[in-house]
């Protein structure tokens, strides 16, 4: 199936293997594509981007036939999964069904794996063998891992050494390992290089595991072996770690080793040993959490929608692929910087993309003419200790997403941590309901 799809792409790119990313692949003028009968949109991926896009397409134009194809029967959000790891809540509280999208919005939900895209024939191929046709396709397939970047670590090892960077069974595997770890053990996390899904995520994880250790396994340690020299909201995290976990003192529960010394290049899964830094120093863990470097979701690669960076180049006004016409890519898979790879951003992109798709299907120029996005990433450093980073974005004259000058930024050093913790929890409820409509 991947072959079929590759062939189409070669045709599309005029027989050259180097896909020319000149932006020339965008679809013809909208009017030429208007045809009789209800318009069909297929959305692949029922996460933050895809589920939001499906719902908002129906809100913008109920006459559009929307099919959402998602492999899993339920969706467990990554946001909140660190709270589960820290024992603050159970996994059911962050798991959503697709029933409301089906019943309240009339979306046709298919649980299957999309294995290929026929760009010329405008259909997607399912693993079960059938085909689904579209007038426009929206992909939000999330991320995949570049296992080749860490020697000794493969997709088969994730039950011994979890990444827990896609929530669900991986969250449970890591939670169980942490819960059964001896007091006095060492939890080692190896955060990935940029760009990756949820820049503050690894450090929220460290914080809430520290909170759990402090109560239940006070002799334990946490070691961060980082592929980066610095990280998101670092000043705020460090202040929180000082306030709550003795960071910087000789009793500190948390130790941070920045790149290059912290960069993990090799892992021995059996003995849970990570090899870090230029000298490949061996660090033995009781629980080892490796988060590999990332790339666009597998389907984006199979369909040839990625460039050399491993992510999908798109037009930020419509989120249409610069490689394949009538195919839109949103969420983590898209090249979206300066928007981060976050659930908030994916939900925000979905609304702009859905509006553009609905208007283009109606034979109009893409609306809105002046798009606008927001991102906010809340993190809990402790159960009552919240911090955030926020930003408002617009479309620059060059047609790319840009930050609105003067907007956004970090929680002030003297901000109200307790209130922000409350808002962080409520944010997750509200954005989940905005996405899966099941609140």
């Amino acid at each position, binding site marked *: 199936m991947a072959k079929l799809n590759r062939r189409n792409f070669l045709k599309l790119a005029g027989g050259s293997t180097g896909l020319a990313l000149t932006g020339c692949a965008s679809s013809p003028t909208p009017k030429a594509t208007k045809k009789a009968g209800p318009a069909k949109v297929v959305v692949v991926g029922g996460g933050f981007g895809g589920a939001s896009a499906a719902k908002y397409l129906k809100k913008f134009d109920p006459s559009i036939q929307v099919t959402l194809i998602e492999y899993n029967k339920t969706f467990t959000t990554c946001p909140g999964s660190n709270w589960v790891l820290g024992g603050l809540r159970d996994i059911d509280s962050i798991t959503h069904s697709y029933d409301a999208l089906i019943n309240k919005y009339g979306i046709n939900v298919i649980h299957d794996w999309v294995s290929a895209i026929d760009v010329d024939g405008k259909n997607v191929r399912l693993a079960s063998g059938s085909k689904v046709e579209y007038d426009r396709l929206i992909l939000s397939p999330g991320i995949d891992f570049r296992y080749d970047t860490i020697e000794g670590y493969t997709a088969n090892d994730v039950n011994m050494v979890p990444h827990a960077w896609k929530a669900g069974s991986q969250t449970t595997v890591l939670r169980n390992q942490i819960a059964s770890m001896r007091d006095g053990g060492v939890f080692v996390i190896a955060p990935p290089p940029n760009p990756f899904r949820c820049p503050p995520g690894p450090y929220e994880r460290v914080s809430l595991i520290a909170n759990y250790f402090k109560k239940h396994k006070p002799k334990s340690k946490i070691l961060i072996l980082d592929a980066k020299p610095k990280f998101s909201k670092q000043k705020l995290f460090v202040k929180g770690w000082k306030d709550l976990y003795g960071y910087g003192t000789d009793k500190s529960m948390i130790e941070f080793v920045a790149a290059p010394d912290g960069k993990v290049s090799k892992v021995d899964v059996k003995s849970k040993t990570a090899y870090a830094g230029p000298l490949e120093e061996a660090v033995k863990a009781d629980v080892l959490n490796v988060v590999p470097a990332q790339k666009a979701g597998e389907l984006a690669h199979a369909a040839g929608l990625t460039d050399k960076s491993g992510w999908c180049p798109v037009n930020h006004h419509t989120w249409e692929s610069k490689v394949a016409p009538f195919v839109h890519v949103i969420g983590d898979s898209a090249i979206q910087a300066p928007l981060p790879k976050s659930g908030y951003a994916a939900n925000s992109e979905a609304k702009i993309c859905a*509006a553009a798709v609905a208007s283009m299907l109606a034979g109009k120029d893409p609306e809105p003419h002046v798009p606008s996005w927001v991102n906010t990433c809340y993190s809990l450093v402790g159960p009552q200790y919240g911090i955030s980073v926020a930003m408002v974005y617009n479309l620059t004259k060059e047609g790319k997403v840009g930050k609105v000058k003067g*907007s*956004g930024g970090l929680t002030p050093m003297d901000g109200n941590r307790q209130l922000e913790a409350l808002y962080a929890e409520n944010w997750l409820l*509200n954005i989940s309901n905005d996405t899966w409509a099941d609140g």
Partner: protein
Amino acid sequence: MMKHRTLLATALLVAAASLQPLMADHDSGRTIGLTCFGCHGADGVSLGAVPSMKGMSEEHVRTAMTDFKSGKRSGTIMNRIAKGYTDDQIKALAKFVAGL
């Protein structure tokens, strides 16, 4: 002189009016307003501590956003958000919220 200015003003009005139908469904108030739902809840109905946007009057939203933007009112996060919008965008936003 007078006449010239009137003519120009009329020409500008016509240009603005011809843009109207395209803007109707997705004016800046709606486009920006939808980005607030992530925190304030779907259709402006919050399920917890963040205040619901639904039910706020146009006047209230405009005043709150203007004051968050200038720093006259302080919040945990709204100052950082409100600084992202022009006064015209805040006006349009207030209208959208009042219509929820």
